[in-house]
């Protein structure tokens, strides 16, 4: 009997802990967004975060997109050849990339790069009293550190996804044209004829949400880190893991919202 009660208590504690973390994350997000809407806004910090997130993530996102497009074209071709549906390769590549793979893979890449860096930077500031120093200098840390990063995330990731979509389609086109024997005009017209505005828009909305989540979790985990180098390390890991999981979960939710019949 005691063992059953202990097990129930364990489950209960876990559930309460999860609710507490979720609540604290939501409050943190609300506070961060509210500081976006009230002056002053630190444009210099925003530009720095934007350059970090967009410009310096470009190589890794570009390479990921190109190779994903190439692999996608190759795999689709070999799979579809079984049903004599090879002509649909271009359609599948462009839809997969714009709707799903572009935003999700760019999100995961940026989560690994920027989520970790943000958590490490803010976490180090926390454990070395730099955040307290901001407060004593009459500067709200949420406004100075968090709000600019949230906005940068919302803007940077859609921009990266536009690039990823273009390069991914290019990757698919290169393989289709050079290896699979598709004609240039046939492949491109097949790509653009089939593509709809909603495919691109849904991908960009997803990217904006993912960018927000990456910045939010990096800031949240860094802000809450305690206990020196070990605490900062844990915060960094937690930021990347949580952002990656939330990206995949929100991808499903947003897909339901956009495309469920």
């Amino acid at each position, binding site marked *: 009997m005691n063992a059953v009660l202990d097990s129930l208590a364990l489950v209960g504690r876990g559930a309460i802990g999860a609710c507490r973390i979720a609540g604290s994350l939501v409050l943190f997000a609300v506070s961060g967004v509210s500081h976006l809407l009230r002056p002053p806004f630190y444009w210099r910090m925003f530009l720095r975060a934007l350059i970090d997130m967009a410009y310096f993530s470009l190589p890794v996102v570009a390479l990921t997109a190109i190779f994903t497009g190439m692999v996608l074209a190759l795999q689709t071709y070999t799979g579809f050849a079984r049903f004599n549906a090879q002509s649909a390769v271009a359609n599948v590549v462009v839809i997969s990339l714009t709707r799903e793979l572009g935003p999700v893979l760019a999100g995961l890449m940026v989560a690994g790069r920027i989520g970790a860096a943000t958590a490490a930077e803010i976490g180090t500031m926390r454990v070395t009293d730099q955040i307290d120093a901001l407060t004593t200098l*009459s500067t709200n840390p949420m406004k100075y550190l968090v709000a600019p990063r949230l906005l940068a995330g919302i803007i940077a990731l859609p921009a990266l996804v536009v690039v990823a979509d273009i390069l991914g389609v290019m990757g698919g086109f290169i393989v289709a044209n050079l290896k699979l024997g598709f004609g240039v005009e046939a492949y491109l017209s097949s790509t653009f004829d089939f593509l709809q505005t909603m495919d691109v828009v849904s991908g960009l909305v997803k990217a904006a949400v993912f960018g927000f989540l990456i910045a939010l979790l990096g800031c949240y985990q860094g802000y809450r880190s305690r206990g020196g180098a070990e605490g900062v390390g844990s915060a960094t890991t937690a930021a990347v893991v949580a952002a990656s999981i939330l990206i995949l979960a929100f991808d499903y939710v947003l897909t339901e919202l956009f495309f469920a019949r």
Partner: protein
Amino acid sequence: MNRVGPPSPQGLTRGAPLSVGAAPPPPTPSREGRGLSIPKIRIRGLRKSFGDKLVLDGIDLDVMPQTSTVVIGGSGSGKSVLLKCVLGLLEPDGGTIEIDGRDILPMRRTEREQVRSHIGMLFQNGALFDSLPVWENVTFGLLAQHRITRREGRERAAEILGQLGLGPSVGELYPSELSGGMQKRVALARAIAAQPDIMFFDEPTTGLDPIMGAVIDGLIVDCVKRLGSTAVAITHDMASARRIGDVIAMLHHGRIIWSGPPTALMESGNPEVDQFIHGRREGPIQMELRR
């Protein structure tokens, strides 16, 4: 700056409010004189716990204007917690903290930020912003509040760094490129950049060699005098406490157990103070640790 004379030595009963650094009022006080007789910082019954651990157990302390008060005490005695409560970085469980006669605890955040803009703080490890060059660290508060332009900030930083014996080229360096002593001086420059009314110093000499410690103490005393500020320092470095303080208060078991001028420290008559300042292994503090 007219320093207010130190108080007479006093042993202290637990819980009794301290009035430190107060001079006897003149027969017909001037406006300034009246201002100096009112505590700049008045703390009453300040309590703070972390879980079951009671860290501050009803602190009563008055800090008079234009005096330097040094709070001494062992590691874990609650000195930093006291400072963080006054700065608003920690929320106390009870009590009042008045600055210039206004209780800051019920204040809204914007009001507190207004009060904080008149306070300078030197953190134990400097807490300089790694990502900013020294000049931007020094003038950060002024730039963030748009009180100066970036160009003026560079000039202002060079001026303040010069006052602390650092050349203008230091302004372009990053904190990681500075030695420990230079970092402390830059942190001090940041604390005084806005010419605050009140200055807090958290372990100003920790991690420095004795000579550099004396240099930093000298700079602190000079800055406080020049600005006419009220200073509160916390330290367990007795040499530093004597150099900086007009008044020394000892924190033990979450309470101020003794207060008086540095000259009275040797004859405090308080066994805890006596053991602490002489660094004796045997005594009431050690006995409590053994228990």
